[in-house]
C-alpha cells in the first residue's frame, strides 16, 4: 500500500491572500483525514511560519527560474513540510547561525531562546520577530534540515525541510 500522500503543493509567487487560501485548503484536507485539533494546530503553525518566511522575501528579488515552492505531505505517521525560496546572499550567514543554534538545542534550550528573543528582540521592518525558526523547532521537536544553493553573487536558494511525527 502506498502511504505517501501529497496534501498541498505550491510553486510560484506567493501573495498574502494565497497564503490564506493554502492554509484553508490544508485545514480542510486535514479535517477530512480525521486528525485531532492539536495535530492540526501544530501543522498549521509550522506551515504559517514557513509560508510567511517565503512571503517576507518575496518583493526583494524576482527570479523566474527559481520560484518559491511549498509542499506538505504525509508519509506513514509523519508529516513533511518542504519549502524553497530565494534569499539575499547577505542574509545567508545569519540564517545559518540561527538554524544551527536552534538545531543544537533541546526542548528546554529552545524555550529559553524563545523567551530571550521575544523579550529582547525588536520587530524587523519586514515584520519578523526572529521567532519563526525557533517556533518551528519547538513544534517539530526535530532538527530542521536546510540547504543554501548559490545562484549568483547576490542570491541563494534556501530550502527547508521539517518533519512532524504523530
Amino acid at each position, binding site marked *: 500500500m502506498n502511504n505517501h500522500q501529497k496534501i498541498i503543493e505550491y510553486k510560484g509567487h506567493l501573495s498574502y491572500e494565497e497564503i490564506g487560501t493554502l492554509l484553508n485548503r490544508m485545514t480542510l484536507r486535514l479535517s477530512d483525514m480525521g486528525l485531532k485539533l*492539536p495535530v492540526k*494546530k501544530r501543522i498549521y*503553525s509550522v506551515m504559517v511560519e514557513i509560508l*510567511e518566511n517565503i512571503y517576507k522575501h518575496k518583493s526583494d528579488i524576482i527570479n523566474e527560474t527559481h520560484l518559491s515552492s511549498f509542499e506538505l505531505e504525509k508519509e506513514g505517521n509523519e508529516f513533511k513540510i518542504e519549502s524553497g525560496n530565494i534569499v539575499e546572499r547577505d542574509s545567508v550567514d545569519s540564517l545559518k547561525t540561527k538554524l544551527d543554534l536552534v538545531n543544537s538545542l533541546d526542548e528546554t534550550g529552545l524555550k529559553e531562546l524563545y*523567551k530571550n528573543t521575544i523579550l529582547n528582540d525588536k520587530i524587523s521592518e519586514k515584520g519578523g*520577530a526572529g521567532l*519563526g525558526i525557533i517556533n518551528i523547532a519547538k513544534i517539530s521537536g526535530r532538527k530542521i534540515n536546510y540547504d543554501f544553493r548559490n545562484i549568483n553573487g547576490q542570491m541563494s536558494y534556501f530550502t527547508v525541510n521539517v518533519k512532524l511525527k504523530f
Partner: protein
Amino acid sequence: MEPYIREATEFTPKVHFDAETNIFELSGFSRPENVIGFYKPLLNWLEKYQDEVLVKNVDFDKSIITFNAKLTYFNSASSKFILDLFLELFKFQSKGNSVVVNWFYEDGDDEILESGEEIADMVGMQFNFISY
C-alpha cells in the same frame, strides 16, 4: 475616552477595549500582514488609558480591569505584540490596579493553552485558564 473597537477579519482578531467598563477583549485569529500597523495602536491606546483614566483614579478602590483573551491562533510575530499588551497590563497591576486575565482556549487546544502559560510566566501575572 473613546473605546478602541475593531471587528475581526480573516487575518486579524476582534478588539474591544472599553475604558468605561474597564473590560478589554481580544479574540479570534491573528496573522496580520502588517503586524506593527495592527498592534501599535492597541499599545498606544493602553498607554493613553493609563495616562487619562488610571492616573485619575485616586479612590482607595482602584479599578478592576478585566482582559478576556479568546484567541484561536496567532503567529509568532503577533505573539511578540500580545506579550507587549500584557506587559502594559502588568504595569497597571504594579500601580495597584487589579487586573484579571481570562485566557480562553478550545478544549484540547494545547497550543493556545501553553502559549498563555508561557506569556503568564514571562510577564509574571496570574491568568485564569478557561476551556470552552
